[in-house]
């Protein structure tokens, strides 16, 4: 549960207790109480309930029975689950580096002060973040069309034969493009905010030492924003493992390419809402949650250690 803690915020250092003992009272609860109450209802209770569900099985004969870890055993041998997991892992390994790479380059370009019209770039690249995943996917879905879409237009206008972006071979890349489009500006903004607060004295020192632009980037800027890089990576990992909206909305256009178990999230959704297998669905979701947390934790360990 505490996977994310160190990079997001170091442990809140205990306030100096002796001098301020009188302040340590329940007054604060009056302010944070409402948040904690709703948080318990929509975060903690479902997690506990989910674990409870995963230990039972609902059968036609015999009703709901306690089955221990049978559901987990079944999930670990479930080819559909592993195929879905493999798909998002592949997605993660290709889409996330591309997206974060572009975001970082743009953030560095903005921060370098060498652009004309900097604020125009910052806001226009960020704009897709305000577009709902539904609209982004519908829009790209139309453009992907080989008959009436943009791909079809290009083919007929230039005599090209672009492949169908919604074919089984290419649909994952097409989804990756949509996700990149949605979140590149958002990640750019995270990096840019971190770059802006690097103490200027560091650059002056580098200038005196005669360091070039790239040297400044690699020796000062990148190490200084490592925390932001790790955070963005972790959030992108969580996002990739949760992939659902884009394939779900694209499915009507690509029925053959996108199956109802295309991603782990899609699989749990279908299990629960088309298959009524709530117990098994909860189990798959828990396993996915654990895998996500472990991967996020490993990235964080590695990211924080490197060059520290």
């Amino acid at each position, binding site marked *: 549960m505490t996977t*994310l803690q160190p990079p997001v915020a170091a442990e809140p250092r205990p306030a100096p207790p002796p001098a301020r003992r009188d302040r340590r009272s329940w007054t604060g609860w009056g302010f944070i109480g409402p*948040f904690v109450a709703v948080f318990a209802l*929509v975060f903690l209770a479902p997690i506990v309930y989910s674990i409870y569900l995963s230990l039972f099985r609902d059968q036609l004969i015999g009703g709901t029975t306690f089955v221990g870890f049978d559901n987990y055993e079944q999930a670990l041998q479930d080819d559909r689950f592993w195929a879905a997991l493999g798909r998002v892992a592949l997605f993660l390994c290709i889409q996330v580096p591309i997206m974060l790479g572009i975001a970082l380059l743009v953030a560095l370009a903005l921060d370098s002060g060498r652009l004309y019209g900097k604020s125009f770039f910052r806001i226009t690249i960020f704009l897709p973040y305000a577009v*709902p995943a539904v609209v982004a996917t*519908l829009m790209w879905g139309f453009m992907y069309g080989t008959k009436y879409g943009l791909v079809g237009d290009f083919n007929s206008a230039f005599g090209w034969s672009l492949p169908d972006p919604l074919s089984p071979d290419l649909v994952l890349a097409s989804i990756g493009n949509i996700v990149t*489009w949605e979140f590149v500006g958002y990640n750019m903004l*995270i990096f840019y905010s971190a770059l802006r*607060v690097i103490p200027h004295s560091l650059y002056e020192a580098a200038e005196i030492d005669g360091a070039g632009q790239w040297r400044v980037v690699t020796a000062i800027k990148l190490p200084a924003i490592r925390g932001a890089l790790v955070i963005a990576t972790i959030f992108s990992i969580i996002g990739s493992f949760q992939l659902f909206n884009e394939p779900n909305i694209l499915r009507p256009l690509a029925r053959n390419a996108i199956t109802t178990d295309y991603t782990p999230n899609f699989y749990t*959704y279908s299990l629960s809402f088309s298959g009524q297998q709530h117990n098994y669905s909860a189990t798959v979701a828990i396993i996915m949650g654990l895998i996500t947390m472990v991967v996020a934790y490993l990235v964080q360990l590695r990211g924080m250690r490197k060059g520290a």
Partner: protein
Amino acid sequence: MSTPVTTSVPAAPAEDSGRAKSAPRLRRAKAHRPGRPKRSKLLTALTSLVVLYTVAPLIWLAVNATKTQSGLGDSNGLWFADDFALWDNIHDTFTYHDGVFTRWLLNTLLYVVLGAGGATLLAVLGGYALAKFDFPGKRGIFATVIGAVAVPGTALAVPTFLMFSKMGLTDTPWAVVIPSLVSPFGLYLMWVFATEAIPTELLEAARMDGASEARTFFQVALPLLAPGIVTVLLFTTVATWNNYFLPLIMLKDPEWYPLTLGLSAWNSQAETVGGEVIFNLVITGSLITILPLIAAFLFLQKYWQSGLAAGSVKE
């Protein structure tokens, strides 16, 4: 990827005012930066490619919102069709199926006002408590909430649905509003922001004068938190306005759909037997759906950018 996590603020909050002061000083120093680097046409051109990538689909959407259903098929996607049907499309979008789009728009507004408004309120109160009070269980709360960010929404969706269905909340607005009320990111941002923006001495002075805790909060703390509040409100609004997964599992009745779910339903209508193909309305409806948020981000730039910057000040 509709992560409940809207954005992140890298870096840990400084716990005391000593470092907090360095923030504005830094920014000022940067404004008068000596030896401004030379602007580069090449770099500007390269960055323009990224702008082209992010903006081109939005232009495509705007251009194609002016076409009739048949015009969509006949004309090139990058340019206008012979008929300019934007006004007809807007009219049809709002009147199709007895004006169900208007209903969806009002639903979305309801979810945003209650969900995002409520989430911001809870985050402001909670962030203030974490920043300015020491109370039993504080560290536990903080660790749990930050850890919860890593829990995938999927792991929560099914059990939340089952719980809500037992409580009779599914298919009502509450099923969408209640889960939207919690924004761990909002809490974190308000905590950082309150730590920096409210001098503890000011609160102590107010208490010394005999002001109650509530009065101290509303009259002393709240005004200082304004830029942070705008930022959190904007990001929770985006999260609620754009939410798809949560309403998808919670709502069956189209009467309660938000815009996102409604547009998706219109889009899939094309492949149901006897379903009318209304891609022109899907496209026009999409354009109408994104305009308010884009406008909000453009007009409130000053606020949310300073709010975010404050969150990342302490690297």
